[in-house]
């Protein structure tokens, strides 16, 4: 769901960069000496997860898991996404230098929204209800990302509206897969290490 350089109009690129800088600043305020390794390691896991390819029918997709990222990191998801995209741009040669801001916002904002909406619900519920909520968190974050990618394309020009629709349609199977994955991962974490979810981004570990 990355957008490449040269597609978007200047207004969209600048707006994306400004929102991204604000989000990164907010996210960095959550980072302290105590939790910096924790946030960095969890970001690294999501980077590694993005290298995992899951087959869907004849093709395969790579994991995004921005819903789970938001649920675990909160506001720190924004710098985590930015760092992942920067590393992909520099080390994988993906380019996307001017659209770094827009891509960061498209991936990180859904993570934050999911965290704010589903975080409290997931903390309170158990069993089947929790699994359904986690499924919805995982799939709705992908849906929101697809909508935002489509929106940034459509805002750049009428001729991209068809491409925007295509982006949304091709992401529907990904929403389903990511929903199941997020539900499974969330369920496992809640069973095995609930501290990972309870601690939130602010709490120090060493204390």
């Amino acid at each position, binding site marked *: 769901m990355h*957008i*490449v*350089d*040269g*597609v978007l109009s*200047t207004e969209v690129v600048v707006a994306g960069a400004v929102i991204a800088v604000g989000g990164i600043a907010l996210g*960095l305020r959550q*980072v302290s*000496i105590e939790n*910096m*390794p*924790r*946030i*960095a*390691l*969890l970001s*690294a*896991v999501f980077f*590694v*997860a993005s290298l*995992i390819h*899951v*087959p*869907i*029918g004849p093709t395969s997709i790579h*994991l995004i898991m921005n819903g*789970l990222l938001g649920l*675990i990191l909160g506001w720190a998801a924004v*710098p*985590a996404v930015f*760092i992942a995209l*920067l*590393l992909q741009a*520099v*080390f*994988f*040669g993906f*380019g*996307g230098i*001017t659209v770094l801001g827009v891509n960061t916002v498209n991936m990180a904002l859904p993570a934050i929204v999911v965290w704010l909406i589903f975080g409290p619900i997931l903390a309170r519920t158990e069993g089947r209800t929790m699994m359904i909520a986690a499924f919805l968190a995982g799939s709705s974050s992908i849906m929101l990302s697809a909508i935002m990618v489509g929106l940034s394309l459509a805002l750049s020009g*009428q*001729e*991209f*509206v*068809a491409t925007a629709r295509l982006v949304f349609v091709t992401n529907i199977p990904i929403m389903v897969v990511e929903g*199941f*994955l*997020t*539900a*499974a*991962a969330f*369920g*496992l*974490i809640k069973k*095995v*290490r609930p*501290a*990972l979810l309870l601690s939130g981004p602010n709490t120090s*570990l*060493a204390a």
Partner: protein
Amino acid sequence: MSRHIVLSPASRNTTTGMIGVIDPRFRIICTIIFAVFIVSITSWQAVVATIVAAAVMVALSLPEWRKTLRRVLTMDGFIFATLLLLPFTYPGDTVFTVWGHTASQQGIYQAVMIGLKANAVIFTVMAFLGSLGSTDLGRGMMGLYIPTKLTTLLMFTVRYIDVLHHEYLRLRQAMRARAFHLRSNRHSWKMTGYLVGMLLVRAHDRSERIVWAMKCRGFHGHFHFTHLPRPAKSDYMFLLVMAVILVMLITLEALCPPLI
């Protein structure tokens, strides 16, 4: 083991080649300036010239050709998929028709232009930053007054991506040993979800040990990079050459009117 390294620069050695010895700050700044210039170009001649200039620079930095080519082709497949619909949705003179949808000349031109621009940026990044190691990236960012927290977070992430990737490969091997085969069904997705969850749990535990170990060694929020040396004469020469190239490209852009 080196086969599995996730974040490896495209070039073999950071100290060889023409670009490898240049101050990382200058390289990062040049990348940003060139990327902004490329996306605002309107004539195809200027974009092609930029790609040629960047490709020559990539060649001078002694890349691993197969890896570089594979990366470019992967990205081009992706770019192609993004731009596939553009000729059919852009209004203009009809060139050909597919299933009742007309492709316009202007649309094809736009799609080709965007494809070229995206490639130009990819080549520019490879030329300037392709041989940059992660430490130099951190030092360069620090030197450009990017917030220390962000740089430190980046360096930490870079450090542990490979560690956790090994952990991931180990877990996958364990799954393979138990005859797990990744298919497209719910069981596979659930297992992959457990795999990611387990990676997160282990990363969390590891981070606790790291915090304690680092606190013992007096960690107080950032890494101490060796100071970047003052920009040498060669760095300023590099900047000058890049400025000349940029002026030449801007002249080309001004001389060649956009086709449409």
